[in-house]
């Protein structure tokens, strides 16, 4: 059976299904076996919880570090609270089964923590909910899947791929990824590409159609999944896999070449990264810098704010790895799809139009200044860090951020801490507002970077995660192209550098247009660095000028895309 989804990450993978199902923790059918029996069940479950959690903590301490392990050892301490246990025992005395007792008491504490006005304490609610779910799983004998111990040739099938799932993922044994939700620019897609694993997303009811152990083929380039393929199909795809691997190998000649067009004009080619650990892969991919370092990952998968030291260490590590090369770090971009419990972001009707990114940060100066100070300090040695503000819509936001930055500089100078006095401050151009006032923003910013994913979403007023309207979401839309052109020309007139860090920067069809308009820097995923360099090498100025004139003469996205694809594939 052939299933069609969204092509999210290139490559062909063949293997067997391992399904990650949302576990049902409904205990309404569990009988009450009497006070003593239920208390014994509860105690056994707590012992088991402690044992498993301690083992997880040990593993995380080795793999990630002591701070991450502390979250887990803290959970053991919380569950060891004698009063929490006595409350559970009282519930059992009152006629609840062990599951009911654990559920009621944990939920009561989670609600209590969720309701306090202290941000650091509110995060404990996440811990208690985690304790609840794991305790119930143990009591009910529901076993989760250990993603660090998957068999070789695994095709992972999940509803969604979350950052915390991929933390422990053993990449070597995964041949491909299938999810039920998400589009090309969802987090699942970004993560799959970062891991360089073939992925097809938005296969409806994948978890119903696919059973553990089913044979699967994932064609990430085409967005096709073949369920239980016959021998002939398998051999076809094996050939395709070989072909893909050869093409990838052919790009190797570009690894040590400079990024220049056919006339010898140079461009900067950078990589996008989402964690300090990815900097190494970016450096190895042939990237000449980091055009976008997303800092959200520092704030996710934990239960409290990362303090200045934790942040400093992450930024400093990337600055060091990329010594002599630029590193553009985007300040915290939260809200919408990336809510983080302990930040106390309220649920909103329209999170993408709500209190997020720079708006949230400017309202929380005490929190934002921790990040700015960490960035200023991290840049002291190599002087290669540039600070980028997300979701800018007006001049005041840049001014307010600059004022906070100046305050931080003053404080650091007073306490004698070294920092980068000349750190550059720029704006990510990803809203129609910013694109329209690019000339005004250029007077306030040291650089621009165009974020095409959000710029396309906001310009076209389309939710990129909604498969029903995703067809409108295209960077080939004339509205989006005109916006990009406007931003680049405003930057050129003001004499500031302008880059692009969205998916579009790696699109072979758009590369000639961006070259024509004078984009200085292309920032793409590590996996696309060599292919992008190869595309830039192809074009002479006279060619990209002609292609751009032709493309801008067309009035529909499909017309533009069709023309560009046909032209660049010649």
């Amino acid at each position: 059976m052939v299933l069609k989804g969204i092509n999210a990450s290139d490559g062909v993978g063949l293997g067997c299904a391992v399904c990650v199902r949302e576990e049902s923790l409904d205990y309404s059918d569990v009988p009450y076996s009497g006070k003593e029996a239920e208390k014994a069940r509860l105690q056994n479950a707590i012992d088991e919880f402690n044992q498993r959690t301690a083992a997880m903590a040990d593993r995380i301490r080795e793999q990630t570090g002591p701070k991450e392990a502390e979250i887990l050892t803290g959970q053991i301490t919380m569950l060891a609270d004698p009063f929490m246990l006595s409350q559970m025992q009282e519930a059992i005395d009152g006629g609840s089964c062990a599951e009911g007792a654990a559920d009621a008491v944990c939920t009561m504490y989670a609600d209590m923590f969720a309701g306090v006005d202290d941000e650091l304490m509110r995060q404990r609610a996440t811990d208690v909910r985690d304790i609840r779910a794991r305790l119930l799983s143990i009591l009910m004998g529901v076993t989760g899947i250990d993603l660090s111990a998957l068999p070789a040739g695994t095709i992972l099938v999940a509803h969604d791929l979350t950052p915390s799932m991929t933390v422990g993922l053993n990449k070597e044994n995964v041949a491909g990824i299938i999810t039920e939700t998400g589009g090309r620019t969802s987090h699942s897609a970004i993560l799959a590409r970062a891991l360089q694993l073939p992925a097809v997303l938005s296969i409806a009811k994948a978890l119903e159609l696919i059973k553990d152990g089913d044979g699967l083929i994932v064609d990430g380039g085409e967005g096709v999944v073949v369920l239980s393929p016959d021998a002939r199909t398998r051999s076809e795809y094996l050939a395709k896999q070989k072909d893909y691997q050869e093409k990838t190998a052919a790009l190797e000649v570009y690894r040590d070449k400079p990024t220049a067009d056919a006339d010898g004009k140079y461009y900067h080619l950078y990589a996008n990264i989402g964690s300090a650990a990815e900097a190494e892969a970016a450096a190895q991919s042939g990237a000449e810098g980091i055009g976008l370092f997303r800092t959200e990952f520092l704030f996710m998968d934990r239960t409290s704010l990362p303090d200045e030291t934790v942040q400093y260490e992450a930024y400093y590590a990337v600055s060091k790895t990329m010594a002599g090369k630029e590193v553009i770090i985007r300040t915290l971009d939260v809200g919408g799809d990336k809510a983080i419990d302990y930040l106390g972001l309220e649920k909103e009707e329209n999170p993408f139009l709500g209190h997020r990114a720079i708006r949230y940060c400017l309202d929380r100066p005490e929190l934002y200044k921790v990040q700015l100070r960490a960035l200023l300090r991290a840049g002291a040695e190599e002087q290669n860090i540039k600070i980028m503000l997300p979701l800018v819509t007006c001049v005041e936001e840049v001014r307010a951020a600059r004022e906070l930055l100046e305050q931080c500089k003053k404080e650091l100078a007073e306490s004698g801490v070294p920092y980068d006095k000349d750190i550059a401050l720029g704006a990510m151009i990803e809203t129609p507002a910013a694109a329209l006032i690019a000339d005004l923003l250029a007077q306030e910013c040291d650089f621009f970077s165009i974020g095409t994913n959000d710029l396309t979403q906001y310009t076209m007023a389309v939710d990129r995660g909604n498969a029903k309207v995703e067809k409108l979401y295209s960077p080939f839309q004339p509205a989006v192209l005109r916006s990009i052109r406007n931003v680049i020309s405003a930057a050129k007139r003001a004499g500031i550098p302008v880059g692009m860090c969205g998916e579009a920067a790696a699109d072979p069809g758009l590369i000639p247009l961006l070259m024509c308009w004078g984009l200085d820097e292309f920032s793409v995923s590590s996996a696309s660095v060599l292919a992008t360099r190869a595309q830039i090498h192809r074009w002479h100025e006279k060619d990209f000028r002609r292609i751009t004139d032709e493309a801008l003469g067309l009035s529909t996205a499909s017309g533009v895309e069709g023309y560009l694809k046909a032209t660049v594939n010649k």
Partner: protein
Amino acid sequence: MVSKTVKVINPQGLHMRPAQLFVAEMGKYDSTVTIIFGEKTINAKSIMNLMASCIKMDSEIEIRCEGAQEAEALDAAVKLVESGLGDL
């Protein structure tokens, strides 16, 4: 019953680590240990209750101990809070 009012000097208040230390120490004594913080009366041998009361830096708290070893328990509690509970 013995009691004493002390000031919390931890920069982040009684969060996980200091609360853990405090509860572990108080568990060694047979007396009850209660903290009066504003309107709240907190059982100081329960880490969950202690954390959920959000005792912040510069807060004044009254520690009350009652029962066997009450003097020793109070003495230990006061020393711990005044020393910054390992956070300084």
